[in-house]
């Protein structure tokens, strides 16, 4: 299994973090890099979107989002009863795993490019659509049968006008409206530099993840196991769905990666606001400390390997 060189920057970040280096990416830079990545992905998707009849996308989108709802609905009872976690913690972690990670998706796309595997351009639309439903499911799970009042208005506001969704959808719309020619003069910033910026971002993620690794001992082996088994199971679901929908092998790998990935940008903020009694260290520790590195180093090559088996058997 080979991996993308860009993930070496994550490793460098982890090493720096574990060695307690004074290296740190300033917060303002991290913010700017994440705005860049979200906008660039949105623009890329919008340009591609213009090539497809929107109506044909509607059905598959509904299916991809509907099936994805299984992820938090399965994760919640597992965490609650097998993991003996509090209702709030189980719901919050389920929401993180039901949502998706933009960086994991980007690493997977880069991986496929590097191996010259083709994939459908509209995958990015699924990325946008999958980001938020799980957050709402998570809050519903946390509140089911309890008296605690939820700040629903704040949650909806956070979900739809929080910067991740806003930039993804905004980029999508601008890319769609401007078309390939209108976007061309922006290519040098948003597309040519994309992979380099991703490398920078992974460096910072490594730094942050390293501080999470230390925490993990406290959370016990159950959560660590969950953070590895859950993505693989979700990825399998994604691969079979991809084949059923007639997607290319590359497209199925991307659906699998979206299902397997856990959010650590939109979900933590939304959960902190809507389910404040959940411990954020647990959900971020699992998604960023284990699932993210697992996915970029082992998961993506594994999902591709599985995709080849599954598609060969068709």
């Amino acid at each position: 299994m080979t991996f993308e060189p860009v993930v070496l920057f994550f490793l460098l970040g982890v090493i720096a973090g574990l060695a307690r280096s004074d290296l740190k990416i300033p917060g303002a830079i991290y913010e700017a890099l994440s705005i860049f990545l979200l906008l660039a992905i949105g623009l890329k998707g919008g340009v591609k979107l213009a090539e497809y009849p929107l109506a044909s996308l509607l059905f598959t989108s509904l299916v991809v989002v509907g099936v994805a709802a299984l992820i938090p609905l399965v994760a919640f009872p597992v965490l609650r009863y097998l993991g003996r976690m509090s209702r709030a913690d189980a719901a919050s972690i389920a929401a993180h795993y039901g949502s998706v990670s933009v960086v994991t998706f980007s690493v997977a796309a880069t991986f496929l490019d590097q191996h010259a595997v083709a994939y459908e351009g509209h995958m990015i639309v699924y990325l946008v659509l999958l980001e938020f439903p799980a957050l709402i499911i998570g809050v519903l799970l946390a509140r089911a049968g309890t008296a605690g009042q939820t700040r629903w208005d704040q949650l909806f506001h956070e979900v739809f006008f929080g910067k991740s969704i806003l930039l993804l959808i905004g980029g999508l719309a601008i890319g769609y409206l401007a078309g390939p020619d209108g976007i061309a003069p922006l290519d040098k910033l948003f597309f040519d530099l994309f992979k380099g910026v991703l490398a920078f971002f992974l460096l910072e993620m490594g730094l942050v993840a390293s501080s999470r690794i230390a925490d993990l001992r406290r959370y016990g082996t159950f959560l660590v196991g969950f953070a590895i088994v859950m993505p693989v199971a979700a990825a399998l679901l994604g691969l079979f769905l991809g084949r059923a929908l007639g997607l290319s092998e590359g497209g199925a790998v991307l659906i699998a990666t979206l299902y397997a990935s856990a959010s650590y940008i939109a979900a933590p903020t939304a959960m902190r606001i809507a389910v404040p009694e959940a411990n954020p260290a647990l959900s971020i520790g699992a998604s960023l400390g284990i699932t993210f590195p697992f996915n970029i180093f082992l998961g993506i090559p594994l999902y591709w390997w599985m995709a080849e088996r599954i598609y060969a058997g068709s």
Partner: protein
Amino acid sequence: MAMANSLQLVIVTESVIENTIIEEILALGAKGFTVSEARGLGTHGMRSGRWTVGGNVRIEVIGDADLCERIVATLQEKYDADYGLLMYTFPVNLRN
């Protein structure tokens, strides 16, 4: 606004609820406030200001004892259980 018997109320809390807290403070009658970025350690663990953990904010409100009392009571009831929160007061002399 030189008035006697002013208190400075300092609130250190998570930046994720900055806007919510400021709405509460204004609704309770504060005429102004000053906010600055901070990080720190308390019973809710380290808040280093790195993303995914988030930082703290330090909110200062100058007002009379009554206002401070109302703010303290409201924030304690609604936010103390779930969020990192520290509140303290001390008397100051307003000079303009």
